[in-house]
């Protein structure tokens, strides 16, 4: 294990919620409504149900091993070399995710918040912030997430309440207008990003105080996080309409632009960007933590902290190289990312689980 820290079950739930919301919240209405349009709530519900199953499976797998994360037991279960290969795959998986996150934040900032600032400057500042967080350790990160939590909830509620007067119910109809296939397709992008990225928690669950309640935490976190995303998507559809929602890169931000309180306070969408910023910070920190942990495991090092700066540099590089533009990213998320997420996020841990059970069964027969 990397450190001696312990995180509470409550902190785990908060981390999960913020991990799920992180970065997804600004895009989710567009991708979720892409195929299912006004039946988006159904896609969302299906995705949450699948997400709960995924979360349950992750928790179940994590609880098979005491005080070990997936990086450790993959080597034990699959053997040293195959295990290391799995770790490299996981490392690359999160390198890609983290690079996307860096890109997301930088693009959003330069397009919407502070146009004119070089994108690289934003990436570097944000990366340094993340590195500081990761170096302080998981315990500090989860405490910070705990402090962010009321703010995230407050700002989200502020958004939803203040635009709720503009809801137009006719945007919801006709209901069940779409084929099940299309609805499922929409859910699929939702399942692969963020739910199948939750494999990261296989490395974090071992630090939790009371493992007995981890399953509950995982499921509650999944439902809460997913629920928030679905509600935000619904609001987008209800207020902006299907067309406008799917056309925007950041539909949620477009929604926030509609905020007016008493005709005096308007254009305070920047505040809503705060939610996104806080959660994406937590998500990126966890990813960076995982990447560093995987390298530590790969070479059996003593500490992860010095690795954070080089990884940070590489991540900024990847953020620039991997994503030529946001359209590329949106397209990639909707196509190639789906098999990658399914393979790494589901098939890999499933194989580990099966092999582990077989081994137990085999050793049980021997004795």
């Amino acid at each position: 294990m990397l450190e001696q820290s312990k995180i509470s079950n409550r902190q785990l739930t908060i981390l999960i919620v913020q991990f799920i919301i992180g970065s997804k919240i600004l895009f989710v209405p567009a991708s979720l409504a892409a195929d299912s349009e006004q039946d988006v709530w159904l896609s969302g519900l299906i995705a949450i149900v699948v997400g709960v199953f995924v979360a349950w499976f992750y928790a179940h797998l994590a609880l098979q091993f005491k005080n070990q994360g997936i990086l450790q037991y993959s080597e034990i279960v699959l053997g040293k070399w195959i295990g290391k290969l799995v770790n490299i795959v996981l490392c690359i998986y999160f390198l890609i995710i983290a690079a996307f996150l860096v890109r997301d934040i930088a693009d959003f900032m330069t397009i919407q918040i502070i146009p004119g600032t070089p994108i690289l400057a934003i990436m570097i500042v944000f990366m340094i912030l993340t590195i500081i967080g990761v170096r302080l350790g998981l315990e500090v990160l989860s405490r910070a997430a705990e402090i962010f939590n009321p703010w995230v909830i407050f700002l989200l509620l502020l958004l939803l309440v203040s635009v709720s007067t503009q809801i137009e119910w006719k945007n919801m109809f006709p209901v069940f207008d779409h084929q099940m296939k299309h609805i499922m397709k929409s859910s699929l992008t939702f399942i692969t990003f963020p739910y199948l990225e939750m494999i990261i928690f296989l490395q974090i669950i071992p630090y939790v105080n009371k493992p007995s309640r981890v399953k509950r935490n995982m499921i509650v976190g999944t439902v809460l996080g997913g629920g928030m995303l679905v509600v935000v998507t619904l609001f987008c559809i209800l207020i902006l309409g299907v067309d406008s929602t799917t056309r925007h890169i950041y539909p949620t931000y477009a929604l926030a632009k509609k905020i007016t309180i008493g005709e005096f306070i308007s254009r305070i969408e920047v505040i809503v960007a705060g939610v996104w910023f806080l959660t994406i910070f937590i998500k990126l920190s966890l990813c960076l933590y995982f990447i560093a942990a995987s390298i530590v495991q790969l070479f059996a090092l003593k500490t992860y902290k010095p690795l954070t700066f080089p990884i940070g540099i590489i991540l900024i590089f990847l953020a620039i190289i991997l994503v030529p533009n946001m359209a590329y990213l949106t397209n990639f998320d909707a196509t190639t990312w789906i098999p990658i997420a399914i393979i790494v996020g589901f098939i890999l841990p499933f194989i580990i689980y099966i092999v582990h059970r077989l081994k137990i069964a085999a050793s049980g027969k021997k004795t």
Partner: protein
Amino acid sequence: MKVVGILIVVALIAYFEISPMAKKKEIKDLWVFSFLLLIGTVLSIMLAIGVTIPNPLDGLTKVLKPVTNFILGLLD
């Protein structure tokens, strides 16, 4: 100019990280750290001087094309 900036940053990072590791005699950590830092530096410099670097995701997309099409085909 950019290259100099990158080198300065890298030198600063190296200065602050290497001495504690060297003190604790964590030789392996030192190697891995230096290796990663070197990769990062080389890649950044390549980016800075405008070398065109192929996007690895394009390759990934090509390799996974059949699988992607299969999955998406199921739902189309």
